[in-house]
């Protein structure tokens, strides 16, 4: 009897597991989410670019069904199964991910995810696009902005979040701010996300050990995490908060592996000297052979 219960438990568990794999349930409240801008040729072109960089390695080219053989299968974005998803569902899935699909929350901005969706929708002939009218973009209902300042003496970076609603400027408290540093292939978290205080201010430690350019300049991006509440708010600023760093070429030193011009001095000297000495001697010998001929000539003439 106990065995049977265990068996039943296991099989139910297995069934749930399987269904969880084939079906990806999106919370009801997130399903209806809409993009904050209207899809356009420009957004589709950008989306294609993001898609190729971030998605194509597993999902392949839309319509080509050349996605990777993974469990569960990534699927072809141009397939009916895929396009059945609402915009909000797609957005949720890209944002959150599930094993083995990674979450792109920290990789792509929300706008960038919407751009990818706009690109995928170009494979859907029946798609009717709906997007948020400007006034409804955020729950806040006004325009929110972030200003970044470098507090040099304190070694801190201050982010101040202000909102303009109905013509009144106010500090926004309790908004979570995330600060990132731009690197070649992505952006690096410059510290844990923090909430603004009563004055709408949040202070980050400067990433003083992170190499910047030769003046220590780093390209920073501050963003509010709760985009539902405040819309997409970000500030891009270059501040001298990093470690001043002067890049050195890897090919400056004289070495065995470098080009001839960068060969070790001792090698240049010994090699040339040895070759010179050997060949100078050889040419001296050749000259001596000429002398032998000259002597022979004279002897013959004397005999004549």
């Amino acid at each position, binding site marked *: 009897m106990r065995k049977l219960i265990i068996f039943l438990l296991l099989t139910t568990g297995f069934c749930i597991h399987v269904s969880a794999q084939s079906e990806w349930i999106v919370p009801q409240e997130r399903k209806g989410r809409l993009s904050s801008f209207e899809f356009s040729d420009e957004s589709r072109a950008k989306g294609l670019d993001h898609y190729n960089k971030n998605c194509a*390695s597993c999902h392949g080219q839309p319509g080509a069904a050349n996605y990777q053989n993974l469990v569960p299968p990534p699927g072809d974005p141009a397939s009916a199964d895929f396009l059945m998803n609402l915009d909000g569902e797609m957005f949720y899935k890209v944002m959150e991910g599930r094993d083995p699909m990674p979450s792109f929350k920290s990789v792509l901005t929300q706008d960038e995810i919407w751009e990818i969706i706009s690109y995928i929708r170009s494979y859907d002939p029946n798609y009717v696009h709906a997007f948020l009218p400007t006034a409804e973009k955020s729950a806040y209902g006004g325009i929110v902005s972030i200003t970044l300042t470098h507090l040099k003496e304190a070694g801190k970076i201050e982010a101040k979040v202000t909102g303009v609603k109905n013509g009144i400027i106010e500090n926004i408290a309790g908004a979570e701010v995330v600060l990132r*540093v731009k690197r*070649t292939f*992505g952006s*690096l978290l410059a510290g844990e996300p923090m909430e603004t205080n009563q004055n709408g201010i949040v202070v980050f430690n400067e990433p003083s050990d992170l190499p910047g350019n030769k003046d220590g300049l780093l390209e920073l991006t501050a963003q509010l995490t709760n985009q539902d509440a405040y819309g997409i708010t970000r500030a891009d600023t270059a501040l001298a908060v990093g470690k001043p760093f002067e890049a050195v070429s890897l090919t400056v030193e004289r070495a065995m592996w470098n080009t001839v011009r960068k060969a070790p001095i001792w090698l240049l000297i010994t090699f040339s000297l040895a070759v010179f000495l050997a060949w100078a001697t050889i040419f001296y010998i050749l000259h001596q052979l000429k002398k032998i001929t000259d002597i022979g000539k004279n002897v013959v003439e004397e005999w004549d």
Partner: protein
Amino acid sequence: MSDESSNKVPNNQNTNSRKSRRDFLKSIGYTGAAIAAGGAAIYTGYRYEHAKGKSGMVTVLTNDNRLVQVPIDQIHEFKPDPHALQKRGRQGLEGRRWVMVIDLAKCRNARKCVEACQSAHHLRPHEYHINTLIMQDAPNTAPYYMPKPCQHCDNPPCVSVCPVDATFKRQDGIVLIDNERCIGCRFCMAACPYSARMFHWQEPVLAQEYETSFTEYDVELNTPQRKGTISKCLFSADRLRENEMPYCVTACPNSVFYFGDENEDAVTNGTTKETVRLSQLLKQNAGYRLMPELGTQPRVYYLPPKNRLFDAPDKELTGNHSTQTT
């Protein structure tokens, strides 16, 4: 003496006849030049009239990825300067020090990195720039999969021994091979302790396609490949120039590869695109380099296969063995 004087007389005659012949040639030259100039003028006129006829528009993709329309008759053939490709390829990207981190805990030998690399560089299935190996360090330790690209050493033994500067190190750390220079002596293969280099023992797999469609040799992609020359991992120098990560790195479905610039102290995962501090990644995960005792100073770091995501491979698969590839 008499020989000399007798030689002089016909010599004079020779100069005379030579002179008249020179005049003749000259006149031919003038006529020829005139004909050529006239012909050229007529041909240009013809070309112009001809081109005017088809004044349609053609859609062209510009360098900054814009689609524009250009009148057909204003199109000029564009051929990139091969020396320009060579020059920039040999210099490398300024201010960069590319670095790769391979997390062995995540590799399950999917070999997607190998396939992506082989298709980008026109290689056969058994011709490797990157190969994944099944390693076992000691009899009692668990085997693991290890992707093995060129280590792009800072003290590269392969470059030291090259007699003709065909393989070289660039300022951004990448060790490249120029197959227009390589003499095929294979000294570099003998010098490489990582067996990272391959040789084209036969015509490359796409040799026939190279013949029908002319493609400029790009030293950063090492295509077209050439028989009798070395080929090797390039850290996808062509992609890096476009600010994109290498083919193998982005092809991995299992987040094995991180790639980035040591000068920025950051590497980005090719699968999840997550960016992390290089120094912290290596510190927290006990990163190491292959065969440090050889002093080669690789630019590829490994993270040990701890807390791995997949089962360890079978012990029987370690060591030397062959697979049938066609």
